[in-house]
């Protein structure tokens, strides 16, 4: 009789202990069993958020004041292109002019990248904000002196990029450099109106981003010399467009076969 009660007593304890263990071990036993996914489009059926709008408002007022100013008018739509594009020609030509103004030494040609021209310039009014969209980066103008040997790599780079079609990454915008690409061969390379000479060094104006090997422009690495102008590309573009406006010249660009792809 007494024996049985003791047994019950122990059994109770053991049971309680087991239950306690069970409880503790259950604590972390959440198992991932299922998932469901669906992404939401953010369209104009959604309203803006009132509280966020109150935070944004003072910034937007300041921004609009600066960015909505019309700084000139474009006669044409300008877009990047391959083997040449209106936008690339427009920007490279003006950066080339600017570099020649800034530097004491001659600047042979300009080379930029289409990936860095972030939006087309539309026909019509051009606002300061549009130029910020075109060139949002803080990149600066640099003049790099490279060897004729590296120039061969540069020419090859342009050739490879120019034969790619229908891609945002196709083409290399230049100014002051001309070449003909024919059946995977490059001919008639002219720099500053002189035939290319592989034994000469050349001074190229570009962005600091590209000069540091950006967009895999390895031919700019280990240059003979590098001249930092301290001027941002965007500031140069803005200054040029505003100057033209003062002279009552509207924006225009042409395709002139500088990189010519003969099929």
């Amino acid at each position, binding site marked *: 009789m007494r024996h049985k009660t003791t047994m019950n007593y122990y059994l109770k304890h053991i049971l309680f202990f087991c*239950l306690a263990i069970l*409880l503790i071990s*259950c*604590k*972390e*036993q*959440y*198992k*991932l*069993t*299922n*998932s*469901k*996914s*669906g*992404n*939401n*489009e*953010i*369209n*104009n059926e*959604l*309203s*803006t*958020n009132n*509280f*966020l*709008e109150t*935070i*944004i408002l003072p*910034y*937007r007022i*300041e*921004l609009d004041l*600066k*960015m909505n100013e019309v700084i000139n008018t474009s006669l044409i739509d300008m877009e990047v292109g391959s083997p040449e594009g209106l936008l690339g020609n427009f920007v490279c030509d003006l950066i080339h002019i600017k570099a020649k103004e800034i530097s004491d030494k001659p600047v042979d040609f300009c080379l930029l990248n289409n990936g860095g021209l972030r939006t087309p310039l*539309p026909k019509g009014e051009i606002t300061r*904000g549009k130029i*910020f*969209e075109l060139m*949002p*980066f*803080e*990149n600066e103008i640099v003049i790099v002196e490279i060897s004729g040997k590296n120039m061969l790599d540069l020419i090859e780079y342009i050739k490879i990029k120019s034969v790619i079609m229908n891609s945002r990454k196709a083409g290399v915008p230049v100014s002051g450099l001309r070449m003909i690409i024919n059946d995977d061969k490059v001919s008639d390379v002219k720099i500053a109106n002189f035939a290319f000479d592989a034994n000469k060094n050349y001074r190229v104006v570009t962005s*600091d*981003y590209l000069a*540091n*090997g*950006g967009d*895999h422009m390895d031919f700019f690495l280990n240059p003979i010399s590098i001249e930092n102008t301290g001027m941002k590309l965007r500031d140069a573009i803005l200054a040029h467009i505003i100057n033209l406006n003062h002279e009552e010249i509207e924006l225009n660009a042409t395709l002139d076969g500088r990189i010519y792809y003969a099929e």
Partner: protein
Amino acid sequence: MTEEFTMQNRRKFVKNILIGTAGITTLSSFDILGIARKEKHIKLTILHTNDMHSRIDAFAPNHKKHANQGGISRIASLVEKIRNEEDNVILLDAGDIFQGTPYFNLFGGEVELKLMSQMKYDASTMGNHDFDNGIEGFNNVLHNANFPFLCSNYDFSETILNGKTKSYHIIEKQGIKIGIFGIGIELDGLVDSRLYGKTIYNDPIESANKYAQLLKEKHACNLVICLSHLGYEYEHKTLSDKILVKETKNIDLIIGGHTHTFLDKAVTFYNKVGKPTLVNQAGWAALSLGRVDFYFNREKERIDDLNTSFRPSKNYAKF
């Protein structure tokens, strides 16, 4: 806000009573012992963005492709709506918050981070464009963020960002532990070296495995999320989220960015040990809000259609 909170508690309470009296589940011993607060089934809602690129306002009405679409302010409205519907919401970003509109050029990222803080983002990682004003530029506006930046393979110890980002972060929701870490893209050749300075780039696969294991095993996280700015996929062998899955284990979800990939929903891939890993990405420019709901069950067995069988119907809220 408080009112909403009360409503949700009440809804849960009502749900428990209804379940009890309807006899769907019998009251377990746990309930008697007063541990009934632990839910048997828990739903976790992960919301995410990537590559917002300073898109504070919607695209202009004359934009060729995205006229009047997108904008952080609109995402905030949708997040708020979902927060009102769901109990456990986590909001994450996979980098490239900066660059793309003059808001960044004029204010250096201050507006973006202020808005994300107001939206109660839980964490973000850094994309390549978040270096666009240099480490110094990032550091100058970082105080506007009340959420951590998770950078598990960028070593900033030799820079002014030392100690200002985290390698991982753990969030707890109703007893569910969610471990999150961040994998950044190789900066060399992509970002000007003067902008990232003395940042050391550690192997992304090694780092991912290290932190995923730490979170899953040491910290016993129920869910491990990787915020990645590697990109969804490439034509060549460049490391992408798709490749990252194959080379890792212990990751349940990769929230990606960089390639501006629009997906309808998360895609399942199989990891190094054959377990499923979800990969999701929400386009760019605040044009999409990614969403993945996870369902957890306190019992061991797999319940297949949890969504339809156990999701409290909207009607409960009316009681």
